[in-house]
């Protein structure tokens, strides 16, 4: 079942559209489920293109502005495509005290990117996050789903080297 006219989009293939429809179908009558729908759709596509948010709005019977309003409120949602690997650097207090600033400036320097941005070769997206709850290992970086503790400006490039 499709919920509205499916727009053409280079980053969404037919298989993804099927998954998106399933997500909407499972949630459209559940009160307050739009955040969960956005999260799952982002898991499928990697980010939330405008066309996708419009489609979700139609499927959930909500105004586009409501969907965009919710999505733009939460840091989890991205509106730009991401690099092949997501590097989350913790900018929480413990990591800050232990020198994450140096690590971040090293990464930015090495891969020609900014905080929150993606490297020109689409290899890494650098996401600052507020405390990963692993303060015991500060400073902490999570690449995809691997947690690396005790990183430093000299070690960080060796670690990232392994992610092609």
């Amino acid at each position, binding site marked *: 079942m499709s919920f509205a006219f499916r727009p053409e989009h280079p980053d969404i293939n037919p298989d993804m559209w099927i998954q998106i429809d399933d997500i909407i179908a499972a949630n459209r009558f559940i009160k307050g489920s739009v955040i969960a729908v956005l999260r799952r759709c982002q898991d499928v596509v990697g980010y939330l293109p405008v066309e996708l948010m419009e489609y979700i709005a139609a499927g959930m019977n909500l105004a586009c502005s409501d969907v965009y309003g919710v999505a733009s409120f939460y840091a989890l949602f991205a509106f730009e495509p991401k690099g092949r690997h997501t590097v989350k650097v913790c900018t929480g207090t413990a990591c*800050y005290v232990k020198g994450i600033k140096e690590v971040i400036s090293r990464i930015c320097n090495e891969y020609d990117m900014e905080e929150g941005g993606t490297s020109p070769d689409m290899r890494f997206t650098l996401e600052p996050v507020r405390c990963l709850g692993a303060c015991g290992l500060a400073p902490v970086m999570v690449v995809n789903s691997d947690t690396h503790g005790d990183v430093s400006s000299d070690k960080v490039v060796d670690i990232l080297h392994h992610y092609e």
Partner: protein
Amino acid sequence: MERFTVEALQAAREDAAAVLNNPDVIQLMVCGGTGCHATGSIAVIDRLREEIAARDMNDKVRVVETGCNGFCAAGPIMVVHPGDIFYQRLKADDVPDIIETHIINGQPVDKHFFKDPISKKKIPAQSEIPFFAHQMPRALRNKGLIDPESIDDYIGRDGYQATAKALLEMRPEAIVEEVKASGLRGRGGAGFPAGMKWQFCQASPEAVKYVLCNADEGDPGAFMDRSILEADPHAVLEGMIIAAKAINAHQGYVYARTEYPLAIRRLGIAIEQATERGLLGDDILGSGFDFHVEIYQGAGAFVCGEETALMRSIEGRRGMPRPRPPFPAHQGLWEKPTILNNVETLANVAQIILKGGAWYASVGTETSKGTKVFALSGDVNNIGLVEVPMGTSLRQMIYDVGGGIPRKRKFKAVQLGGPSGGCVPEAYLDTPVDYEEIAKVGAIMGSGGAIVMDEKTCMVDMARFFMDFIQDESCGKCTPCREGTRRQLELLEKICDGSGEAHDLDELERLSAVIKETALCGLGQTGPNPVLSTLRYFRDEYEAHIHEGRCPAKRCVALLKFEVDVDLCTRCGMCARACPVDAIEWEKKQLARIDKEKCIECLTCYDKCKFDAID
């Protein structure tokens, strides 16, 4: 799966306790918290299982993946019972030796023991390590002792006994009375008495009510709630069931941070297991009482930890706070009466019901009862989770439990309460852990983040850091917070950049007063605290930045020269070896020199130089 009656629960408890306490089986408790996972505990566990199976010892040794042990900096950690032998920093390759020497031949392997950073002595037993010896686990009573993914382990440690008692033997009023008698106050920050909150909600005649658990844990530097959920998720569920009975609610939600995948997974398993056994869902333990729990994942917004914002978020909207009253106890989620409690608050409830409010209140101070869990981190030797009785002094916590400051540096301050809190300097380290006493020195108890800072931390930069956090996380609904915090950040950035002016400090104070007075929610009302507390205790550092263009801690890049002080340089070459871009020229026994063309101003050399010789 068979649904429990009370009799079946008692029988299951006896069976499970027999497994946990079997004297003929050696129990290897390996930490499986987020921290130890990151340092490789899963490889250790796999190897243990492999080696034990290969030696046909499965009936003599039990390998348990526990939740967070608490001593995160020493991971991966394994504790062996009997004997309480504590091993730290294990690798998979250490496993065969430990099995042969310790498990088979009874000789603990001392090279993996904990070494006290002060006395340099090796300490084999976990209970004798100072980090653990001064603690009093209550909210964390099962940490390191059970497999958090096994409801049987939990039942074997008196799990769900309190639920049985509350649902079958107690009237809602009696539950509230017990919680009131315990003096338990909210552990999420504000410290509101839990029993009173429940009583307000109980009084409401509405038919639909909700119980919510706040597992958003947004304060950076805090990981108590994550650890509780990872180590003992059923304890939190029990707290929710008992709260539900007290106010007559039948639906609950746990609002959990999306950054905590392991905690969410373990809580999900706990809900599933409890539901299968009839300890959650319809007709719990045959009592006729129904209660369902769902997990709701946050999406990365600090303000959603605030109660009214959290409820908006569960409703699927932008997580913006609203003015109170009406209080959530009367009008909360979907406008129905709702109670919201923090993870740690709820984790204490089952013990209070089982052992009585008077038992809980037997430790603590006049106004703050029981224990408090802190996440001790930053510049301190023993980093990890610490549960101490209320009334313990901050000094005891940092020096006795935390083992003091590493690298022979001096203590400067401990930051309590995250972005809503403040810094406590050396002079006030004897302040006891107590809601009112901590507030008197300009900080707050907060949710329990305690970040220790040594002399190399710039307090102006810290204030800037927190203000950056606050202005970024401000939801934008009210002007004082949206605009005021931004103006404060600009002022602080200006000072850190070396262009601060004398009147900036007055302006910071004025703005702080206005924001505190007029902001809509707790985020803005407490947001200026980090500025005020650093101004109160470290005004000299602000003044050095403004009047002398100097950052005493050498952290503010704009005020640094990136030059080697020839008088102080000992020609050791530490800086040159540490520099990630080879910008430091040095040869044996020669002065170091920084090549400014190559230097990326990363401050690594400042951190590595032991002689403070880089200016």
